[in-house]
């Protein structure tokens, strides 16, 4: 499918942005408490809590504990001295290290310890948890003899790799943006390439056209002079040579233009064109006949170039007449395409040479004798013209034993 450049660029941008958007939304909703923040208690809060608990009566203490316990912090009292050692901090972010120091500083000389819980997982083990909140367990020995234990609770604001969700979304967006930019650049480069290619092809066609025109001028001079050759046999041969050269030139020009999609197209009643070519040859006594199996095939129209179609038909028919003694044509239509079969009465074309013979300058005859003429371009030109009109050409065996050339062209469908 071919889309215009503006549409393609638009599609690239829109699809990229949609992917980023969907991914971000999915990540956000997949982590249920994504909006939660790491609500670590402030050191002053902890100091105030410690002071409050020391002054409160035992009855009030449980009330105070219940008042300060929240989703981000659990507070409990345990009898006796439960304070342990503050372990040496390793591979923790500077922020956490400072927080630990601040907690220990506000305890006013009370025995206290801070432990990190649990051990870092995932990338955290590699020390990459630079922005990952880490749970702290804070223990303080109160003046009352009990130990206050504060747990700050971790909320999953990171993904499985221990990276924050926003970071991943941003990174993904940036990466996809880069990919989009790259795709866009490729697209622009591709368009430029297409323009350059078509200019190149056009220049080549113009060159072939120019050569064809000039050669034709020389051949016109030659043709006008040839009539002065006294020997009529020689003269006829020279005239035939000139005709062959012109045909070769026309073929090359037509084939190169069809390959570049440069042929003007029109609605053509296929059967009528075939009929005209057959009539031309029948009138001069050639063994040609045309059979049209159903009435619909008689009027079906295809979209194509009239000159190119005539060249295809005449190449196939003339091949059949030269190498196969006779040409039996038939036209059939199946509603989607029209098929022209050209059967001959010659020796046929061996299966292993069918592909090869469609190539330019390939001929089956080893002798290359002058009588049958031709440069081996006929089928190659026919194929390139048929394919330029979205058709196919194939070789099979005719029921009578000769070769069967089948040309299949799509019917015109009004839209």
């Amino acid at each position, binding site marked *: 499918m071919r889309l215009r450049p503006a549409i393609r660029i638009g599609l690239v941008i829109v699809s990229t942005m949609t992917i980023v958007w969907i991914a971000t939304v999915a990540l956000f909703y997949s982590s249920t408490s994504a909006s939660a923040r790491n609500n670590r208690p402030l050191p002053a809060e902890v100091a105030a809590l410690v002071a409050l608990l020391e002054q409160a009566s035992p009855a009030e203490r449980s009330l105070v504990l219940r008042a300060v316990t929240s989703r981000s912090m659990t507070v409990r009292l345990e009898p006796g001295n439960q304070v342990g050692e503050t372990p040496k901090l390793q591979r923790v972010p500077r922020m956490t290290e400072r927080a630990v120091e601040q907690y220990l500083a506000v305890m006013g000389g009370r025995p206290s310890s801070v432990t990190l819980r649990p051990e870092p997982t995932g990338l955290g083990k590699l020390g990459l948890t630079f922005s990952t909140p880490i749970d702290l367990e804070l223990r303080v020995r109160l003046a009352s003899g009990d130990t206050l234990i504060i747990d700050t609770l971790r909320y999953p604001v990171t993904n499985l790799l221990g990276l924050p969700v926003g970071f991943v979304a941003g990174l993904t967006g940036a990466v996809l943006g880069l990919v989009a930019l790259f795709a866009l650049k490729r697209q622009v480069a591709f368009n430029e390439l297409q323009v350059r290619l078509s200019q190149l092809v056009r220049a080549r066609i113009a060159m072939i056209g120019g050569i064809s025109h000039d050669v034709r*001028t020389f051949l016109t001079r030659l043709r*006008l002079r040839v*009539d002065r050759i006294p020997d009529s046999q020689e003269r006829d041969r020279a005239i035939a040579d000139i005709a062959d050269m*012109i045909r070769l030139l026309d073929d090359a020009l037509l084939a190169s233009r069809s390959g570049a999609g440069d042929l003007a*197209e029109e609605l053509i009643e296929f059967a009528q064109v075939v009929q005209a070519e057959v009539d031309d040859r029948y009138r001069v006594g050639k063994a040609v006949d045309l059979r049209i199996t159903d009435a619909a095939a008689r009027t079906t129209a295809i979209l194509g170039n009239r*000159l190119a179609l005539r060249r295809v038909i005449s190449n196939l028919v003339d091949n059949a007449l030269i190498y196969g003694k006779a040409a039996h044509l038939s036209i059939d239509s199946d509603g989607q395409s029209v098929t022209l079969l050209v059967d001959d009465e010659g020796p046929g074309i061996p299966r292993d040479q069918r592909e090869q013979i469609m190539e330019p300058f390939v001929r089956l005859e080893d002798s290359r004798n002058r009588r049958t003429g031709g440069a081996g371009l006929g089928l190659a030109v026919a194929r390139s013209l048929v394919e330029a009109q979205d058709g196919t050409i194939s070789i099979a065996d005719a029921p009578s034993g000769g070769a069967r050339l089948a040309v299949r062209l799509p019917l015109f469908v009004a839209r």
Partner: protein
Amino acid sequence: MIDAHAATAATILIVEDDAVIRQLVGEVLRNEGFSVAEAEGATQMNAILARTQPQLVILDVMLPGEDGLSICRRLHAHERCSILMLSAKAEEIDRVAGLETGADDYLVKPFGPRELIARVRALLRRGPRIQAPPTRRFSVATLKVDLDARLVVDQQNAPVALTSAEFDLFACFIERPRRVLTRDQIGKFTRGRVPDPLDRSIDMIVSRLRRKLDRANPGASLISTVRNGGYLLTALVTPTS
């Protein structure tokens, strides 16, 4: 350069830029007893036409300066002579263009002397083609179109209201029925210039015209869209009186 000795024979003017072909054709015709004048382009031809009136002009299509088709149009309008065009292109489209501009016959290069003489004699016998002013009224499907009056009527003779741009477009299709016209070609025919690649105005006019025609001619759609951005009028266009 005029052969004076064959006063009774017809005078033939050859307009061809290739000196050798001009000379060879001239020789062939002189050998047949015609009086021959030669010109290598439009300027020389004009000078000769001021002095003499040829019965036949043999005119090459590809000429430097004013091209053959333009000369042909001019000759057809102002001179009473037959025109035989020489073309280097075997393409049918060129043949059609040549005959539309008033040429009486065509010869594709290369041609032989005998073929040339046969055509020349036939044209001289027939005389210049007296063309009736071409009819500009057509019937397209159930519609009737008069290009001069800029009028389109439907089956009930009710006029179909088209804007000027829509009519120009319709006329462009009617003059080239069943041929695929690209956006560039349509722009060139209707406005005289190739539209910008991002200019969608032709597509918009086509779709408006198509909608109006569908309403005036229910059933089959007259204008079809073709792959690679072309349009074509699928209906047969027949001239009416």
